């Protein structure tokens, strides 16, 4: 078990289980006492004494916590999969449906898609990228199999996902990672915009306004880095440009069309019953990276909300990241580096009903 104390709470990770266990301060106390190998009754006594709470309440909460740990944290489960690594060679028997070469982050990349569904999901994101001037440095291929989708870089499987959108996400992440030849410390389900040297990352769940906020920030002069997956590169802690088209849902067309007239001319695409358009503004940065994340902002659109920003502590930051979705390289050094990065980065929650006001607030965190 790897242990990472953070402030008054604790993060635990098991080498063979994907993910991080986040223990609240009182759960951490139970963990700390448990490690001294005292009896259950002594554990409860110390717990009750430390907080000055009734013994009955302490026993109830300690029992519940230990039961929870037995079925999770301390169970025999093994969830890390070697599925990807055990797939070094593959025979691509099925005919390719789509093949095109692009220039991405200074590298020539060939993207091969096997089915019409993959084409519909992925090709619009690549539509505005320059065509590769010469033979590909890398060939990425997405294939469908009975378990879902596999993403290959040349002959190596670099990801496998059950769902189509997840496969698209991992493909785009892997393309940028390979082209820049930088490993990732973490990946966030988030948008990111900023100056050339400093950006704000805004994590959020699906359909919560990341793309709209990113587009408005771009329209107001900030550099666009990502609207869906933010890569945090190992060692440098920089955020690379994800130079792919933004998918704008119909509900945001009215907000964005006056700022991006080209949006009205973009084809309407039906995607899982929703109408969307893809936007690749002229002048969008195509390569490079931002050297520093200046702040993390959990921005939430709420009708009638005032534009309010407030600081978050580190425990709340991790819990919010868990809600929006993130990935951290699963080794002790990486998790430690990630938690140190979290502790050194200012984090806020922002509620807004006016996206322009939200953009102004975010701009002030950068400039």
């Amino acid at each position, binding site marked *: 078990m790897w242990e990472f104390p953070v402030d008054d709470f604790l993060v635990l990770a098991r080498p063979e289980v*994907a993910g991080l*266990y986040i223990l609240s301060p009182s*759960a951490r106390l139970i963990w700390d006492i448990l490690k001294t190998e005292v009896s259950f009754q002594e554990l409860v006594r110390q717990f009750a004494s430390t907080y*000055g709470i009734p013994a009955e309440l302490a026993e109830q909460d300690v029992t*519940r916590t230990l039961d929870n740990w037995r079925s999770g944290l301390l169970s025999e489960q093994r969830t890390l999969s070697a599925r990807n690594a055990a797939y070094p060679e593959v025979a691509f028997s099925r005919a390719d449906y789509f093949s095109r070469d692009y220039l991405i982050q200074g590298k020539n990349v060939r993207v091969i898609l096997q089915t019409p569904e993959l084409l519909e999901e992925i090709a619009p994101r690549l539509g505005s990228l320059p065509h590769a001037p010469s033979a590909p440095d890398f060939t990425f291929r997405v294939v469908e199999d009975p378990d879902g989708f596999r993403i290959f870089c040349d002959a190596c499987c670099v990801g496998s996902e059950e769902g189509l959108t*997840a496969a698209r996400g991992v493909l785009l992440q892997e393309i940028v990672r390979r082209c820049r030849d930088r490993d990732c410390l973490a990946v966030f389900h988030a948008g990111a915009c900023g100056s050339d040297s400093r950006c704000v990352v805004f994590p959020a769940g699906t359909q919560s306004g990341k793309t709209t906020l990113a587009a408005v920030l771009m329209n107001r002069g900030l550099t666009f880095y990502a609207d869906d997956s933010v890569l945090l590169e190992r060692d440098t802690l920089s955020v690379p440009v994800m130079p792919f088209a933004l998918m704008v849902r119909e509900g945001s067309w009215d907000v964005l069309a006056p700022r991006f007239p080209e949006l009205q001319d973009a084809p309407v695409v039906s995607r899982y019953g929703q109408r969307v358009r893809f936007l690749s503004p002229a002048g969008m940065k195509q390569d490079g990276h931002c050297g520093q994340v200046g702040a993390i902002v959990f921005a939430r659109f709420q009708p009638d909300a005032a534009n309010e920003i407030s600081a978050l502590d580190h425990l709340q930051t991790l819990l919010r990241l868990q809600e929006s979705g*993130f*990935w951290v390289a699963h080794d002790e050094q990486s998790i430690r580096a990630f938690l140190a990065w979290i502790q050194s980065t200012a984090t806020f929650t922002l509620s807004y009903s006016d996206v322009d006001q939200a953009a102004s607030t975010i701009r002030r965190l950068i400039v």
Partner: protein
Amino acid sequence: MDSKPDSELESGQTTETGDTRRDVARKLGRFAAYAAPFTVLALSAKAGTSSGPGPHPRSR
């Protein structure tokens, strides 16, 4: 050196004996407010970072 009261220690700062604010508070028997313990498993998966619903191939 006597331990500083917890209110005088910044988060992460330690006394000369290596005690954190949390350690000092525990020794003094002063955890300010009790909140029921909880443990959250933050699943770490790149798959969780993609937007939009996606049909599983087996469900099509």
